[in-house]
């Protein structure tokens, strides 16, 4: 009897100890999680993320898998919809990390989801790159969270400097969504920098609304009355057309400027001629692109029939960063926890990565140092390169 018990204990213990080895002997698939807003307020952003990722996967498949060390690994994408909601983004990250065993996560795109979702990724020690989130909190004190774009403080400065230098304006108005991290953060930064440049009362109207509002008439009436020389509104493509249209109807004649959230092709599609001639800061300009950027744009356009926006380009770069980091580790052990840490360390080491949205080197915080582009919507509704502003 005693022998049987002993034997069982030995058998069970050895099974537990050796099973990871048994697992690693099986074929290891590298899984990359995509956390994107496929439905909800900004579905176009989700669509561009998904399409860029699919193009990337196509390349990997054509090459016969991802080569790490001297072994080819099959790659799989796990695409989760975060419905453009913070809580769903957190849920998606938790699921992908704990159930799907993804090696790294790309997304979420908007800061509203990226800030809370980054906390989850960091807690589970899994690399997350948000290609498009510009809010500083996304990566702050989170060694496992990176981003593919510049930050709001830089972007706010770029726009404040650009408007001052280009037009010589000294008073500005701001209209932003108080319930969303990205516009609120950027509006605050812009206000701070503008007031530093032009004095304490130079923001003559600082108005807000909440997500899903469609009527901005009282705010815009205030803004028109304030006599501001320019309106800065860091909003998404579903709000920009309404803001621009209503502002014009209420007698606003001065320029309206925005930020990288304007970059979706939908902005001009929904806004039409009202938006021609307006400026915004972005990560890249599609019209007049050259080299690898142009190759990507042409390929994307051929596959999906429209010009990719900055989200698609940044997602493309983020995936290549992850790819390089995985390859730099030199070896996949099959033990997901260990591999995730190895990928994180390799990613932090990458220097002068040459992406289609510019050169990137990560800072300590996991934020790349890169240039911003000022885009002017030309009179054909295309996003033309106007100026490049580097840190």
């Amino acid at each position, binding site marked *: 009897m005693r022998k049987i018990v002993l034997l069982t204990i030995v058998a069970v213990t050895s099974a537990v100890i050796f099973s990871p080895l048994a697992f690693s002997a099986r074929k290891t698939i590298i899984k990359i999680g995509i956390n994107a807003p496929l439905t909800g307020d900004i579905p176009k952003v989700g669509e561009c993320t998904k399409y860029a990722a699919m193009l990337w996967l196509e390349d990997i498949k054509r090459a016969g898998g991802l080569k790490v060390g001297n072994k080819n690994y099959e790659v799989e994408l796990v695409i989760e919809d975060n419905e453009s909601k913070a809580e769903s983004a957190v849920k998606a990250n938790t699921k992908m990390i704990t159930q799907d065993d993804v090696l790294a996560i790309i997304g979420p795109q908007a800061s509203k989801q990226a800030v809370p979702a980054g906390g989850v990724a960091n807690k589970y020690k899994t690399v997350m790159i948000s290609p498009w989130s510009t809010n500083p909190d996304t990566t702050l004190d989170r060694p496992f969270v990176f981003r593919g774009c510049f930050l709001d403080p830089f972007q706010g400065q770029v726009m404040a400097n650009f408007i001052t230098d280009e037009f010589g304006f000294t008073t500005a108005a701001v209209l932003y969504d108080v319930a969303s991290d990205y516009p609120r953060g950027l509006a605050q930064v812009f206000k701070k920098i503008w007031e530093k440049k032009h004095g304490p009362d130079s923001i003559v109207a600082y108005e807000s609304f909440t997500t899903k509002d469609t009527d901005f008439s009282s705010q815009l009436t205030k803004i028109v009355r304030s006599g501001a020389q320019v309106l800065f509104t860091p909003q998404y493509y579903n709000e920009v057309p309404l803001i621009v249209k209503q502002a014009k*109807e209420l007698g606003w004649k001065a320029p309206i400027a925005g930020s990288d959230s304007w970059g979706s092709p939908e902005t001009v599609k929904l806004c039409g001629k009202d938006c021609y001639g307006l400026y915004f800061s972005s990560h890249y300009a599609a019209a007049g692109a050259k080299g690898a950027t142009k190759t990507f744009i042409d390929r994307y356009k051929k596959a999906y029939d429209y010009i990719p926006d900055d989200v698609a380009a940044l997602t493309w770069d983020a995936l290549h960063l992850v790819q390089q980091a995985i390859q730099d580790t030199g070896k996949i052990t099959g033990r997901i926890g260990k591999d995730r840490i190895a990928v994180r360390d390799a990613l932090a080491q990458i220097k002068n990565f040459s992406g289609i949205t510019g050169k990137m080197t990560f800072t300590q915080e996991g934020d790349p140092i890169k240039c911003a582009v000022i885009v002017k919507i030309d009179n054909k509704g295309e996003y033309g390169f106007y100026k490049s502003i580097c840190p």
Partner: protein
Amino acid sequence: MELLQYILQNLINAAERGSFYAVISIGYSMVYGVLMLFNFAHGDIFMVGAYIGFGIATLFIGIFAGLLPAPLIFLATVVTTMFLVSWVGVFVEVAGYRPLRNAPRASAAITGLMIGIIFETGVLILLGATRLSFPPLMKSVTYHVGGIYITNVKAMIIIISLLLMVALHAFIQKTKWGMAMRAMSYDFLAVPLMGVSINTIAPLTFAMGAGLASVAGILYGQAYPILDPYMGVIIGWKAFVAAILGGRGSIKGAAFAGYLLGFIEIFVATIFPSTLRDLIAYSIILIILSFKPRGFFGMEHSTKLRL
């Protein structure tokens, strides 16, 4: 002088916003009057109305642009959309409310919520999540009169809303059907015994509410030309607030409260920082309700209140 212009400008803004609340909240009140239930799918019927209006408008502009004058295309769009969306209202009544008419109130109350979610996700699956841009049915012209900016579209929205409400009032006060509806809301037990069938009056009420909501949807598409499947949720809630504030079941009250809500929202944002708009606006409404718990035109006492 400048202040006066400022106030007038905001009055126009408020009248436009209030028009939407008023026309939509009437739908809530009408159904409540007859069935003692709020149709929580009403905000989503408004959304469906906007989408169907979008389809009809795109179709008609495609066929008749250049052939017919713009106002005629507009009228044709409105009439066709109203007709189609009325049937959506009838569908909601027949599929959602009729089977549960004798069920516990709570069950019947949530059918609307469920139908609303079905509409939202249905549109989402059918058309995808991409935003649609409502085509302009008339060329927007901005007039600058005495320091006030008004567009022809805004003026049209305000005028059409008022006309609709007057027409509805006349229908309810002057016609036999209207009289049946009023009788039903007076006593839904005795009136069917007099030969007025609830199975006729209830769908009629839903159809009229839905028709009104669909016109609101088209007008909304002219003022805020971006359609999304969840556009009816918030405006539906706010119109529901207006329906309660006006007095449950009172059409006059719903219209009045709809405009009042528009005015409060706009002027709160004008006077206070706009960040505090909804906080202050809805606190004001809470205070009004605590002084007038039955709303402005609610019946003083009603023995048949079941909800």
